[in-house]
């Protein structure tokens, strides 16, 4: 495989069209102005530094998700989350029109929100608010702020938000396409993300480290760890290729504690191995654990417990960051109080568990870690084999051939043939493997484990079981057993 950054002249060639795609683009025409601005940001507000410090100290930082339509409201929200919620890291979640580059609709959302006196957008339309709007936000708070979105073509958003003082950028060419879009070509999206990573690489060359976080959980719904791991590692390679140095890989809680701990342990190890093997060095790798990303229980007391269990795993898994849900998750975008409540509940678990050593090394965890390794290796070598030295090509072909396949994803470029089901102990296994290049021994294990459940429940493994599992946690169970 050949890794080489996008040539700077190619980057610059693309740039005018990117900036032209919405009027606020012209404010960031000078990259150097953005760099100068970033140089003025105190260290304590740099996301990459905060992550590195957490790693050194063995601490887990807390970050919520939050974003509303209007600047003032958004500032009030973030301030509340850092004071009352004691968030360590702040987000700015981008609205769904902006994510699809539908800036006109975002503009309408801003107008309507002003008129309604409440946010009618599901996030902060950073492109519409422009560089200065972003600076108002990042200057108003004391903690590092990250852009969290779900944007296949996130080039303009990156230009504006980095110049606007954000110091971390979520997403990736796979993870912000396949789960978030319907008709975006895999190759097109990967190339647009090369632009983003190259921009951040340029900042890095100029002394400004911006943290990059591929979106680990994908569809958030019963994704087997090896699938999200393979994608996280691929996006990590693509980011490192462009010169990114502060990299945070993510994993979304699956619900079985030991599988989750095995997933976290293996993600850290595998990523480092693949990165070193590809010749990358001198980067800073950290992990983020997302509390349960699938359907939540409507009842807030139950939702609190899902949050606490997630916090427990974050703590036992010794991750550098955990993304926190709110007790209103199943219902709607949380009020700031509800968002803070999720943070406080998480904080309580983390600080009660902080000094405790929970058994993370036992025979079961080793079995699962080993399984995940073999599965990831199977996918990765198939992707590499399809790549002809060009990783982007490899990934495009991998999706076309079902070597990579994300369960329940909306993208038409995703085969959608993989069906996960929980086994009798709640581990996420494969019911249908689609075209995933997994060996027979591996599939035999999955099958055996599912038969165990089938027997226990006295029913065959069918799509009904998949559906039952999708609903299970929202209905107060882990496994979707028949009544």
């Amino acid at each position, binding site marked *: 495989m050949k890794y080489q950054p996008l040539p700077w002249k190619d980057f610059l060639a693309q740039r005018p069209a990117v900036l032209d795609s919405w009027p606020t683009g012209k404010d960031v025409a000078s990259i150097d102005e953005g760099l100068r601005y970033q140089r003025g940001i105190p260290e304590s507000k740099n996301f990459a530094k905060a992550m590195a410090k957490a790693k050194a100290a063995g601490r887990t930082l807390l970050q919520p998700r939050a974003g509303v339509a209007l600047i003032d409201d958004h500032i009030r929200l973030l301030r509340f989350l850092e004071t009352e919620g004691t968030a360590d890291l702040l987000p700015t979640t981008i609205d*769904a*029109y902006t*994510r*699809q580059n*539908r800036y006109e*609709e975002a503009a*309408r*959302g801003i107008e*309507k929100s002003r008129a309604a006196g*409440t*946010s*009618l*957008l*599901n996030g902060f339309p950073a492109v519409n608010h422009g560089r200065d709007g972003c600076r108002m936000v990042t200057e108003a708070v004391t903690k590092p702020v990250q852009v969290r979105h*779900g944007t296949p073509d996130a080039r303009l958003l990156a230009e504006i938000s980095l110049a606007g003082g954000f110091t971390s950028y979520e997403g990736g060419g796979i993870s912000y396409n396949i*789960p*978030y*879009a*319907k*008709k975006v070509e895999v190759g097109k999206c990967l190339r647009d993300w090369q632009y983003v990573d190259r921009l951040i690489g340029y900042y890095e060359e100029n002394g400004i480290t911006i943290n990059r976080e591929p979106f680990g959980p994908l*569809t958030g*719904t019963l994704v087997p760890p090896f699938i999200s791991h393979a994608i996280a590692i691929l996006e990590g390679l693509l980011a490192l290729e462009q010169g990114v140095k502060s990299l945070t890989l993510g994993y979304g809680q699956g619900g079985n504690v030991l599988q989750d701990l095995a997933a976290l342990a293996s993600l850290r190890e595998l990523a480092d191995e693949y990165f070193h093997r590809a010749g990358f060095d001198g980067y800073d790798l950290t992990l983020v654990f997302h509390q349960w990303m*699938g*359907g939540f229980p*409507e009842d807030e007391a139950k939702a609190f417990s899902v949050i606490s269990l997630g916090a427990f795993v974050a703590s036992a898994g010794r991750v550098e960051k955990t993304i926190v849900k709110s007790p*209103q998750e*199943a*219902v*709607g*975008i*949380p*009020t700031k109080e*509800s968002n803070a409540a999720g943070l406080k509940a998480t904080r309580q678990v983390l600080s009660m568990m902080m000094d405790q050593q929970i058994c993370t090394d036992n025979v079961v965890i080793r079995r699962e870690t080993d399984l995940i390794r073999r599965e990831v290796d199977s996918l990765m070598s198939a992707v590499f084999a399809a790549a002809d030295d060009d990783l982007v090509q490899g990934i495009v072909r991998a999706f076309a051939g079902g070597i990579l396949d994300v369960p*329940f*994803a*909306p993208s*038409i470029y995703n085969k959608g043939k993989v069906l996960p089901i929980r086994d009798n102990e709640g581990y996420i296994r494969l019911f249908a493997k689609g075209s995933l290049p997994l060996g027979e021994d591996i599939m035999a294990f999955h099958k055996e484990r599912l038969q165990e459940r089938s027997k226990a429940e006295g029913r065959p493994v069918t*799509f009904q079981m998949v*559906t039952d599992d*999708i609903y299970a946690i929202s209905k107060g169970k882990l496994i979707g057993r028949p009544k």
Partner: protein
Amino acid sequence: MDVPRIVLGVIGADCHSVGNKILDAYFTEAGFHVVNLGVMASQDEFLDAAVESNAGAILVSSLYGHGLIDCEGLRQKAIERGLDKILLYVGGNLVVGKTPFAEIEKKFKDMGFDRVFSPHDDLTEAVKLLRQDLEDRKR
């Protein structure tokens, strides 16, 4: 007996695909012919599909909070397209933030939807209502 036809999809810029796949399977199993547009379907796509398939009902999902903006005017457009008898159902996390369901229901009914569902409503019930409503429309 002919199979009742319905159009299903997630409106706007909404990517939530999990519920959509489940609804597809559910209504199919319940005996409907489902034309599923998947996620990110525009109003026009819904109406085109309804015209083409001669559907009795359109089932709109909106999970991500922009339901009010995305659904505005769908009833009028349907009438313009000559679909003046078509049933419009909508369900999901329809507005931004926790809101009393009665309020949400009223807003969407005012916009011309026949029935409005919360994410936690029972699908068996929805199927029953849809069958009944389709019957009633026939007369």
